[in-house]
């Protein structure tokens, strides 16, 4: 707790500096750059790459959340129970199919650019969200659910006012896992010309420039750590509110 109070602002400051003022880090990365080669990635602004990277992750995660949560809601209704095994299979397939393969398969259909990356991240993100939302919706406190029926809430009111709010903390854990996976996985999108921080890493790999690889990797890593942390805080807050 104590250490977080110091570490959190420090990491935010480092991340902002790395994205907004990459030049400041020239002395740090200098030793890793090839002799006479560039130390700091300058072919595109790191800010715009970061924003595009985050945008792609946000869009894919949002879509995955909507689809996975909707699916979890549908199969936990009495009428949807028959579709449980099927929905499991579908979301499992999304997870087992490697994102690289998804990229390779979708490029012919969608062309180079952001599209294939969005599809890959979306498919990859479905499972953790679905599994958690499903678990949360099937393990709600029975007395509370009973009371919800007993006082006269109809199905829709029970879902909106009781089931979803109570399932939120656990669902959010799934969303967090999914987002963090997507933050890392989005880097490979640069192989099919999506604008992500992977561009920096790949440029480093192609030119044997470890400084670029470190720079890109660190920024992605810091984003992942900070977003993970923020979501953990949020979950903790919600769970405390509900006496969890």
């Amino acid at each position, binding site marked *: 707790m104590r250490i977080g109070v110091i570490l959190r602002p420090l990491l935010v400051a480092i991340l902002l500096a790395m994205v907004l003022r990459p030049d400041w880090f020239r002395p740090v990365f200098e030793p890793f750059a090839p002799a006479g080669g560039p130390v700091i990635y300058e072919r595109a602004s790191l800010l715009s790459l970061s924003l595009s990277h985050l945008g792609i992750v946000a869009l894919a995660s949002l879509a995955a959340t909507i689809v996975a949560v909707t699916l979890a809601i549908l199969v936990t209704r009495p009428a949807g129970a028959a579709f449980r095994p099927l929905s499991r299979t579908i979301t499992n397939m999304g997870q087992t199919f490697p994102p690289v393969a998804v990229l390779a398969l979708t490029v012919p259909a969608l062309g180079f650019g952001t599209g294939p990356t969005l599809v890959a991240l979306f498919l990859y993100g479905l499972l953790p969200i679905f599994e958690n939302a499903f678990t949360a919706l099937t393990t709600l406190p029975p007395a509370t659910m009973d009371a919800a*029926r007993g006082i*006269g809430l109809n199905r829709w009111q029970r879902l909106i006012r009781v089931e979803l709010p109570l399932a939120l903390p656990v669902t959010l854990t799934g969303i967090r896992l999914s987002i963090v996976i997507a933050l890392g996985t989005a880097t490979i999108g640069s192989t099919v010309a999506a604008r992500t921080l992977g561009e920096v890493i790949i440029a480093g790999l192609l030119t044997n420039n470890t400084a670029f690889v470190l720079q890109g990797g660190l920024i992605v890593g810091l984003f992942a750590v900070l977003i993970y942390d923020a979501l953990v805080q949020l979950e903790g807050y919600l769970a405390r509110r509900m006496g969890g």
Partner: protein
Amino acid sequence: MIEITHITKEYDGVKAVDDVSMTVETGSVTVIVGTSGSGKTTLLRMINRLEEPTSGEVRINGASTLSEEPYILRRRIGYAIQGHGLFPHHTVARNIGAVPQLLKWPADKIRSRVDELLDLFSMEPDQFRDRYPAELSGGQQQRVGVARALASRPDLLLMDEPFGALDPIIRTRAQDDLRRIQQRLGSTIMLVTHDMEEAIRLGDRVAVMDAGKLVQYGTPAEVITTPATRFVADMVGEMERPLRLLSLIPLSDVMESGEADGAPLGPEASLRDALSACLWTGRSAVPVEEDGHITGRVTLQAIRSRAELHK
């Protein structure tokens, strides 16, 4: 009036409630008592259709409960669930105001109703209104659960072991409160308990359940003096019978004029209280006091003759 006719509920071929028929008068308190697993909860839940009967029917004021949507029916019937079932993500105020809100009461009316109920259950509104259920003791949670059932002033209240988690002192007070509220509002209450003492204390009528069957349905005095089966007699308890009977009779019934020494009792105290006071202080009579004046006395002799009356 609630008419339950030949109602049966089977789970996998086993009858949890077995051909129960009973009529509950409007404005009365009916206590369903029995051992655990005897079908009390199931019987109660068939009235607001949380369980659908396998056969039989329930009519409220002549209309079958099947004649409207279950959730509409339930909004008219207060329900205090066994183990409170509060919404953990809502404050105390929102929990209590849940049904009035469903019925679209204006916000200020809901707010004052919530405070009124918190006061009634001895929970300081300013202190408890904005708390979450996890921040309450077990007894407080249960009282909020009962307050939620009362909130919209329903004509019919179903209560499933509402005082189970309360310690004896608060429990007795909550029972008295419920009786007072019920008498003032004239609501009809069906209450489930496994405690015969509570049944006798609260019930105008007591319904004794055993293995899914209604084995006796009558006034507390009938259940005590003429138990229908061995099981009912056991529930009442052989040794406790005279005391239970005395606990039903107010002092005003056998009061006579005259004097007596020692601390007085109110006219609504029971003969059991008077007997206890006599035995404990070695007196042969206790004075009866009303509005600060001694109005008469109750003697040990009178208590004894009254106890023998039922023979």
